[in-house]
């Protein structure tokens, strides 16, 4: 019988593989970032360049833009693995599927959401968000983006067996991420008005903890349904 690799080394190998694949296609990483910058740039054109108006909407615009940019990248989460059959191998592997998928989601978050978080201060500055609010915005994004990645992964797994899934994914994901948007935007708005912002951030963190535990399991179940042809 073959030597079974330990769980930790399997997780590390999964993470390394996905990150290497993402690094080999660096152009794909840049796309959501460019998309988010261009969408942010369109708002002053559409609404006029007054500072006060842009300041008021800045937090919400950055959050929604990041959400939409992540939605664009979500579709590709399992696409190449389905094409070359490595996802089926993963389902058959002796390691727990939920854990492996958790690693894939982590790699996807590192490759798509992290660059967006890095340029978020630039997007916020383009809309004249006050500098003191930017740390709160970043904290909200750090908690909200993994939530979206996890929720999105479950839905992407559900659509894995279908051919057209882009718009469908948006229809399914956007209603489910209403709470994340409300709490993240609530924290930024409270910080902007000089009010305590810890409560919405705590809610966001609670939702994230729940999602970290449940979403990989749900993702594995969804993938089994979608691949069970």
């Amino acid at each position, binding site marked *: 019988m073959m030597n079974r690799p330990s769980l930790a080394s399997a997780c590390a190998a999964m993470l390394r593989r996905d990150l290497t694949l993402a690094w080999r296609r660096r152009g794909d990483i840049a796309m959501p970032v460019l998309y988010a910058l261009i969408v942010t740039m369109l708002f002053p054109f559409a609404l006029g360049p007054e500072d006060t108006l842009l300041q008021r909407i800045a937090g919400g615009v950055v959050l929604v833009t990041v959400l939409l940019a992540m939605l664009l990248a979500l579709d590709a989460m399992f696409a190449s693995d389905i094409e070359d059959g490595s996802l089926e191998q993963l389902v058959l592997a002796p390691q727990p599927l939920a854990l492996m998928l958790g690693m894939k989601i982590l790699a996807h978050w590192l490759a798509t959401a992290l660059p967006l978080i890095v340029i978020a201060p630039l997007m916020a500055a383009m809309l004249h968000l006050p500098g003191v609010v930017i740390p709160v915005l970043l904290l909200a994004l750090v908690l909200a983006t993994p939530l979206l990645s996890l929720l999105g992964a*479950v839905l992407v797994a*559900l659509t894995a*067996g*279908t*051919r057209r899934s882009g718009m469908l994914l948006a229809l399914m994901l956007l209603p489910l991420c209403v709470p994340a948007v*409300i*709490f993240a935007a609530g924290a930024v708005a409270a910080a902007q008005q000089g009010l305590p912002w810890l409560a919405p951030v705590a*809610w966001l963190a609670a939702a994230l903890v729940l999602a970290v535990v449940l979403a990989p399991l749900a993702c594995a179940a969804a993938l089994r349904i*979608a691949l069970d042809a």
Partner: protein
Amino acid sequence: MASWIPLWLHKLGSPPTFYRFAGALQPWAMALALLLGAIGLYGGLVLAPADYQQADAYRIIFIHVPSAWMSMFIYAVMGVASFVALVWRIKLAEVVAMESAPIGAAFTFITLVTGSLWGKPMWGTWWTWDARLTSELVLLFLFLGVIGLYHAFEDRRQGARAAAFLAIIGIINVPIVHFSVNWWNTLHQGSTVNVFGQSKISADMLWPLLTMTLATKFYYLASLFSRARTDLLALEGGKDWVRKIAEDEASR
């Protein structure tokens, strides 16, 4: 005493039995829905007194409130049927869950439309970003997502299982969405009708409302039965019992 109930239920789970059962009950459910709907509407639109403040405009509740209840009730039915479909792999539960979704979406849509018709004279606006309105809109999108996912698969049973999973995710999410939007913004009034304890509504307004509620329930049953029958025929296309029905229809 109850030993015949599980057997009867098991039999009902088989497509041919359910097809006959639903076919027998469907006209009765539809007749009851129409009768109760006529009584409820007459009671609500003609017999019930006008409101002292809103005059006749309040009468839209006889459509709005039962539809809103139905939208949530049907989502709950869809969630339970989805759970049964995923856990026990019962074909009939998949059919019930998937055929409930369009009916639920229709009731949700009616709720939103009648609500905004009422909102225009009362609140002065067609739409406002209030917690209950927003939750109901999210519910509509959840229904549409389930319908969309179901139709995205070529294999219908696989599509039904995937969409059933989405419905269950939605059930977990609905309280979170509702709570978070409540926390965010609230304008809509609280509930007036209490199942436990005294309702804050006059009795001659309450009885048409409850009659309409029953009417919508029976309409849902009738609609679900006929939709499920059609779906079962399509799903079981190659089976003997369907072929027999087709032959009987052809020889008539």
